[in-house]
């Protein structure tokens, strides 16, 4: 069994990360009734003896003593991390896993990436190495950060390039929260584009999440739960936004949105942690979903968003789950994949779902989904037998789809609006190590990425002839 290390950078990264750990504990408590430290727990937690000062670890198989998260928390201001350390999750982290500073990055990518990146390089590598050494077989680094600010975006991408340098064999899956159009950080387009350049270069795959989509989903659930239709009560702990049953008490703002991100990570790793009839390891995600090295931006969608409290779940509901995964409302970015071109699609199913259910739904939905000509049957499926808390089954769809192009184009537009006027540029150029070429390189990279998606889109309507075969002389 392999282990994964979560690296959370910046305010957003740490808040979302925090929700991940809470929900992970909740999920394992639900499944692991005997209190034994099993392989599944081992993938994200160490089991230590807190009485000993060196924190000696226990191997798999014994009772749970004291769980410590396999994580590194980085933030350039103390507020968020301090809050975590004062909250109910304080036991899960120890001080050697944290790296903080006081003044923050001022929403400036250059400060995060260059100033702090250089100042803390040694310490960061040190902490990452320690986390890696505590793993038997490290398979994946999960980086969680936002793109719009200074720390998550700047220092986060610096951490990403360090990960590639120091641990080139280990998969890097990045969850990036993109800002909405009406973001209150004026320089978020600069930060996002500068960060994207690094993501394109150093990440194995990027799970795209847009704030606006998270907001929409949260509102949708709120409307459902306050609705007055009889028999339509939502099972409280089943909503993808709910943290109920976890350690933390009252919900804080953004918790609901961050819970969605946490659930995304739990579902992606479920087939690697728990057993099922068709397993999917983390290294299979990049293998199947990334046909060309730079096109590794994936669109996630989660269903169901909640379970109704009424009992009977007829098969129709199961098929509905598959349909929903492809609907606009369930995507975690503001896009409609059904009207763009699919390069590849992965379906990660959890719970009591059999291969025939998956086959039936693929056959049903396939005609309405445009796939690129050389990957007409491009589906990767996995079946994990353990459902998430509060549900009998769930589905996570990860699509490599050209619908990310509009998102990137919008970002480019917002960037250009500012860059044309050289607005706020001096804040960046004043930072030591930062040059204007970073900006031009970053926008060039984004342009070429958009071009590549554009080329693929162009093949959509065209009827591509089959590739020539070899004819054997007789």
């Amino acid at each position, binding site marked *: *069994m*392999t282990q994964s290390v979560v690296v959370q950078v910046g305010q957003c990264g740490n808040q979302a990360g925090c929700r991940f750990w809470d929900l992970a504990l909740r999920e394992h408590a639900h499944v692991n009734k005997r209190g034994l430290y099993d*392989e599944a727990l081992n993938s994200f937690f160490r089991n230590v003896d807190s009485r000993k000062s060196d924190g000696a670890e226990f191997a798999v198989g014994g009772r749970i003593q004291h769980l410590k998260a396999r994580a590194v928390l980085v933030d350039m201001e103390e507020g968020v991390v301090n809050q975590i350390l004062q909250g109910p999750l304080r036991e899960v982290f120890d001080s050697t896993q944290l790296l903080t500073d006081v003044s923050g990055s001022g929403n400036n990518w250059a400060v995060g990436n260059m100033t702090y990146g250089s100042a803390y390089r040694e310490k960061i590598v040190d902490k990452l190495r320690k986390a890696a050494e505590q793993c*038997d*077989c490290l*398979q994946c680094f999960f980086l969680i950060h936002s793109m719009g600010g200074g720390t998550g975006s700047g220092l986060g991408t610096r951490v990403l390039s360090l990960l590639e340098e120091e641990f080139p064999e280990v998969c890097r899956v990045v969850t990036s929260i993109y800002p909405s159009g009406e973001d209150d950080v004026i320089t978020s387009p600069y930060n996002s584009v500068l960060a994207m350049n690094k993501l394109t270069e150093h990440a194995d795959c990027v799970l795209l999440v847009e704030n606006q989509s998270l907001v929409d989903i949260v509102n949708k659930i709120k409307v459902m739960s306050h609705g007055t239709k009889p028999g339509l009560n939502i099972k409280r702990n089943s909503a993808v936004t709910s943290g109920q049953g976890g350690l933390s008490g009252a919900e804080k703002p953004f918790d609901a949105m961050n819970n969605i991100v946490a659930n995304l990570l739990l579902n992606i790793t479920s087939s690697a942690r728990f*057993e099922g*009839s*068709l*397993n999917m*390891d983390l*290294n*299979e995600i*990049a*293998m*199947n*979903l*990334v*046909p*060309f*090295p730079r096109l590794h931006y994936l669109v996630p969608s989660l269903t169901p968003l909640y379970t109704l409290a009424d009992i009977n779940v007829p098969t129709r509901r199961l098929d509905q789950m598959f349909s929903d995964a492809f609907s606009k409302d369930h995507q975690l970015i503001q896009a409609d994949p059904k009207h763009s071109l699919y*390069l*590849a699609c992965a379906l990660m199913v959890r719970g009591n779902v*059999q*291969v*025939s*259910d998956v*086959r039936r739904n*693929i*056959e049903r939905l*396939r005609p309405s989904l445009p796939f690129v*000509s*050389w*990957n*007409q*049957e*491009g*589906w*990767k*499926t996995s*079946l994990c037998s353990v459902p998430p808390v509060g549900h009998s089954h769930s589905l996570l769809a990860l699509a490599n789809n050209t619908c990310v192009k509009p998102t990137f184009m919008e970002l480019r537009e917002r960037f250009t609006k500012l860059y044309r006027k050289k607005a706020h540029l001096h804040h960046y150029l004043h930072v030591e190590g930062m040059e204007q070429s970073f900006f031009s390189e970053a926008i060039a990279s984004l342009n070429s990425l958009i071009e590549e998606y554009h080329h693929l889109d162009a093949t959509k309507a065209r009827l591509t002839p*089959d*590739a*020539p*075969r*070899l*004819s*054997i002389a*007789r």
Partner: protein
Amino acid sequence: MSVVTVQLGQCGNQVGQELFDIICSDAQEGQRKTYSAASCERFFHQTAQGDLVARALLVDMEPKVINRSMSMAAKSGRWSYGASSHFSQKQGSGNNWANGYCVHGPCHRDAVEELVRREVERCDRLAGLIAMMSVAGGTGSGVGTYVTQCLRDIYPSSFILNHLTWPYGTGEVIVQNYNSVLTLAHLYQLSDAILVHENDTVHRICSRLLNIKHISFSDVNRVIAHQLGSILQPALTADSHGAYSRNPLGEKGQTLLTPAVVDRRLHTHGELVSALACHPEYKLLSLCTIPQMASSSIAYSTFSWPGLLKHLRQMLISNTKMEEGIDWQVRPPADSGRSRSLTGGSFNTSLANLLILRGKDVYSAETGGIDDPALYTSWLPSKEAFSLWKSPVPFNKYEKSATLVSNSQALLRPLDDMVGKVWNMFASRAYVHQYIKFGISEEDFLDSFTSLEQVISSYSQLC
């Protein structure tokens, strides 16, 4: 004589476990002493306490499936896997053939070879080796190919049969066609015979014949295991004088074109491999078993040998892989009208067939016209092309059952489809960087495509 089975990857291990389960319960049923003894000797060795331990190795690059298979076997109470007969690592092959073949295979070569040696040494006489794997993933396909190569190196004169499970056409793994093509091309050089089950076909059997509503991989695997068991369990040949055939896989030293010739001194017996895979260009075998029906219906059905054989014959020539929707219009062409094209005519020409009949009144059963020369290619005398095994012991609850193992054009269409798709994907070089990363080149891809185009051409030309 014993058979050692190597189970590779998730599919290989899951199917293997079902296979041993079926073989064990079939062997232990009723009072068929000689049959049971032959079956147990072939597939299990007995501990001092009389417990049955499978002659098998479980190999996978991650531990979850092996753990599950071993515990399910132990739970059955009737048999188990050897406690140390397994090899696993922590991290899988990531659905990447090159990762399995170039990295994991060589890395763990010694450990796996050691396990194989130990298992083979426990056998009095080795009949041959069976490697079970899927072709869609990374371990079964990549590591499986590498292990087959090792087996070939260590046991150059033993039979090696590869059992392959082909994935659903509509995808379980996006790069499945690359993995499949790379595997098949390499195995063609290494294996004696390649026996294929297609998930699509087995799935249809589950839904149409067995009436299973929610088909799971266990259901699919159990059907595959049933079909495999019906060919691997002991049977009698015309010349074995009442003794169960000692080597189900074959006898080396038989000349290519005379597989079924009796040599009483050597106690020759039915030869699965040497009868069917008698020419190096033609190694693909398919099988179908009838009847297949929901166990609740078996009690209410009666079967006759002529009826079963008539259906089986028509299934063979019309290339219908299950007993439903058989096209009765297809007939063997008149001598002059033998067509050579892939699509022209739906008649399925056979190179060789092995018919296995099990159950009540089997001695009265005839060949059902499956030995008719019109069904076979013209360049192999039908006497050599057709073999018949019988066993009076009913198999797996069916009073009478008939299995046909064919070396014919049955797999031509699925193979051709697979190769067509692979060219399409390769033309855009999609995913190729993932394979190059682990050590194979574009040349290797092209070589594999070429080999398979050759195989397709050979089979299309059969007439």
